[in-house]
Structure formats: C-alpha cells, structure tokens
C-alpha cells in the first residue's frame, strides 16, 4: 500500500509518497517567502502554492517511481491554517481522488506533526510538545484523542519568535535568524514570565521585547526572549511530566529545530527520568509526509470521506480530532 499526502496549511506546499510501513519514498516541498518584515499574505501564499503544485506533485510521484494509478489513497491537510492555502491542497486532492477514484482522507495538520514525529523517533506513548507556527501545546493521547495538557492563551511560541523577527526587519519564518542573534546576546533582561497553571501567555513578552529594543541591543533582546519563553514552556512541561510520569517526551513542529530549546528540554527530561525525542530537523517544518503518514493510519482502519464532503476548517481544534489508533 502506498499513499500520497498533500500539505498546504500555511507557507509550505508539500507532497509526499509513503508506504504502508512508513517508508517515506519522496517528500518534496516549496516554501513561500514573504517580503522582509512582513508576514504571510494568504492570497499571495495560495498563489505560490498553485504555481508550484504541479512541479511538486509530479516530482514526488517521480521520485517515488509511482503513478497516480498506483496510489491507494490521497490525504490532504484539512486544517487548521490559512483558508486560501488550505483550499489549494484540498481542491487538488479532491480532483485527484475523483478522477482516479481513490479514497480521500482529511488530516489535521497538528496530528500530522505528532504522528510523523512518533514514526521517525519511535515514540510509543509520549508527552508531546507541539511547537509549530499555529500551535503551542502540551498533549498526551488518551481514549482516541490527543488531549491538551496546556497551551498558549494567546499567541504561539512560533508567532512570538516570528513576529519579533519581523519587527526587526527579518523575513518570515524568522526562527533560525532570531536563534542566531540570541547566541550573540549576553545581557539578560527581564520580560513578562506568564504561566497560568499549565497554560502560557506570550503576548506580553512580544510587546515588552519590542519596547526593549529602544534601549537594549537586538542580540540581548533576542537572547532574553528565547530564555524567558523556553523557561516558561519548560516549567509547564515539567508540570505535565510530574503529573503523567510519561517515560518519553517528544518535541515536534518547526520550533523543534532550535538548538537552545533542545538543550533546555534535555535537562527537563533528565530531571524527570524521561527520554527526550526530537523530530529530525528536516521533518520539523511543514511537509507532505506529516499528512501522508496519518493518511496510512486512517486508511488501514477504513476511514475516508467522499470528495463532496472533503471540506477544510481554518480553526479545526486538535482535541476534536478522532485518532482511532491511539488508545
């Protein structure tokens, strides 16, 4: 059995062919780059996706040495994300599914990050830190759902870093550049540290960091921003580990590629005798395989939707998603 996964949630258009056993036969993507200092423009991003889609899809099939006829299913990212972008992937998936008469499977983008992470790291029943552009959540699987232990009450960690980056004129996604600046920072300045139970709030850090730029070097602000935000996240992760006693902690999503974050979480995991698993950097960002792999898991259990009911949902919440393979 092989399947195709199409990802088009935000800035990335990706396609991947994957086998039943989870061998990633191809995983191609093309990332929309907004002008420096600005964020993703949904319409421009969706145009980019339409432009690159034929090349990426053809490339993914070619690299996997298969044709559309060989596929057993088509999976697409159904949300959450930017409407115009999601629609590009969904429209293509509906078309391919209808034309070649293949089962169609909607996949939640966040579930994709988690399940691909589990496939690649071998995690069995981890406490999950989902740190992507759209999510900052701590989760654990119970009774066929990914349940939220804690999450941000306003903006995500990814947005905090990205919006800070944009405010100093960097291009989005600005994570790697902010990380590089932070490495050069030396002086720590206090920024609002807001933890409420297992929930977090990052919006105060963003405002305070922008304000601090008037009197403190950009390197020091970037450094302090990372330290405060990562410490907050570490504290909530520690709470969740102390309560659940999970033996594995897995970090997935674009922010997982940050090296300082890794250092912090190695320490956190060690304190609670848990094993830290981090999704490999090349799979941390959005990609087609994160959609294709849950596609396999759903397909094995006979899940599918008819093309006319294959909608998208910009605000689809992760703890509403049925994940029947997780008990």
């Amino acid at each position, binding site marked *: 059995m092989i399947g195709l996964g199409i990802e088009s949630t935000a800035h990335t258009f990706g396609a991947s062919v994957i086998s039943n056993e989870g061998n990633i036969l191809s995983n191609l993507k093309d990332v929309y780059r907004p002008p420096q200092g600005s964020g993703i423009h949904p319409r421009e991003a969706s145009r980019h996706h339409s432009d690159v889609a034929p090349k990426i899809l053809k490339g993914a099939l070619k690299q996997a040495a298969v044709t559309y006829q060989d596929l057993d299913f088509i999976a697409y990212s159904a*949300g959450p994300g930017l409407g115009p972008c999601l629609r590009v992937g969904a429209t293509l998936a509906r078309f391919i599914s209808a034309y070649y008469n293949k089962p169609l499977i909607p996949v939640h983008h966040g579930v994709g990050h988690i399940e691909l992470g589990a496939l690649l790291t071998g995690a069995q029943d981890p406490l999950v830190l989902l740190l992507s552009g*759209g999510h900052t959540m701590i989760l654990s699987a*119970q009774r066929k759902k990914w349940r939220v232990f804690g999450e941000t009450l306003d903006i995500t960690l990814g947005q905090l870093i990205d919006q800070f980056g944009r405010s100093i004129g960097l291009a989005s996604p600005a994570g790697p550049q902010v990380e590089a600046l932070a490495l050069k920072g030396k002086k720590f300045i206090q920024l609002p540290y807001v933890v409420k139970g*297992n929930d977090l709030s990052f919006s105060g850090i963003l405002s305070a960091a922008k304000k601090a730029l008037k009197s403190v070097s950009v390197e020091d602000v970037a450094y302090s921003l990372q*330290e405060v935000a990562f410490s907050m996240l570490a504290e909530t992760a520690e*709470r969740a580990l102390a309560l659940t006693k999970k033996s594995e902690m897995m970090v997935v999503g674009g922010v997982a590629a940050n090296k300082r974050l890794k250092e912090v979480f190695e320490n956190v995991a060690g304190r609670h005798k848990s094993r830290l698993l981090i999704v490999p950097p090349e799979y941390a960002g959005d990609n087609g395989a994160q959609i294709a792999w849950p596609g396999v898991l759903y397909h094995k259990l006979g899940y599918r*939707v008819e093309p006319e009911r294959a909608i998208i949902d910009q605000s689809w919440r992760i703890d509403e998603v*049925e994940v029947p393979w997780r008990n």
Partner: protein
Amino acid sequence: MEKLISRGAEADIYIGKWGFLDAVYKVRVKKPYMVKDLDVFLRKSRTIREAKMLRAARSFIPTPYVFYVGLKTYTIVMQFIEGQVMKDIIKSQPELSYVAGKYLAKLHNNGIAHGDPNTSNMLLDIKRNTWLMIDFGLSYYTERIEDYAVDFHLFKEILNVQHVDVYDQALNAFSEGYFSTSKITKDKFLNKVEEIEKRGRYARRRNFEF
C-alpha cells in the same frame, strides 16, 4: 533527616520534623536550564507568594499551617498532612470535585485567584476528614472576573486530560460546587470562561464525519 517524597515541576518535597511536629519541606530547587537571574527571581518571588497566600487563604478555606519560610534556601516548612490527593481517588468518586469548586469560589469571593487549581492540589486530611487546598505558588490578589474564569478553565482542562473517564460527572460536580458559593452569576461567568477558551488558537469544535 528529611526524606524526599516527590519531585514536582518547581519544587522538591521532603518530609521531616519541625521541632517535635511532622513537617513538609517544600524546596524550590535551582533549574540548571534557566538563566540565573530568572531562576532566582522566580524561586524567591514564588516562595514569598506561596507563604503569604497560604496564610491569606486560610481565613476562608483549609490550608496547611506554615511553620517557617527560608528565603535564602527558598524553602517553606509547613504542617504535614496525612492524606490523599483528589487526583488518586476522583476516578471512583467524581462527585468529590464539588469541594474543589466550592473552595475555588470562596477564594474568588475574597479576591484571590489560585493560579494552578487542579486535582493534585486538593488534599484530603484523612484524620480530620477535611479537604485542604495546597500549592499557592502561582496565586495572586485580583478583582478581575477574567482571572477567576482562567482558574475555572484550568480545572476543566485538567479534568479533560487527567480524568477523561469521569469528565462529565466531575465537571458537573465542580461547577455545582463553584456556583453554590460564587457571588458571580452563572451565565455571566460561564460566558467569560468560553471567551477565554475561544481566545486560544483554533477553538472550533467540530469533526469530520468519516
């Protein structure tokens, strides 16, 4: 000598003696991953806050008695309670969360938000058959309904992730306990809770019908 009994998110808990009394030593330990300034700031402010708020809350609900606060060692020494946490017994008795709701409302009525209400912070004193509320390190004085609503949301969140099996019953009992005591009208308050939950990312409640 004190004996380590648990390692929480921010503190190690030891059991020992204070004079001739059994005592709990709550020690906020250094976090090696944290910048020193931040680490010291958090440990100090939370130790002070917790000791202060444990005493303040005691006027309204049962909390452990504080014997001593060590600001140099970030330690609070308090009364040892032989008991069980709600987390471990709620599965067979979901109606127990009524008392958590009631205590939380009492704090709110008196201008205190707990900051971390959950089933691990409710302790049953077996000898006296009384519930106590603990872990006040994140609590604060506030008059804002929004802050009270966050407390309510946090407890709900914990039920959903820690006690899925009895979620509905436990939430009902918690809510009943809360509104039995709260001075705020139910509709107004629950609207605020919903508003907070919607403010989080991706609040749409729906699913694909496969």
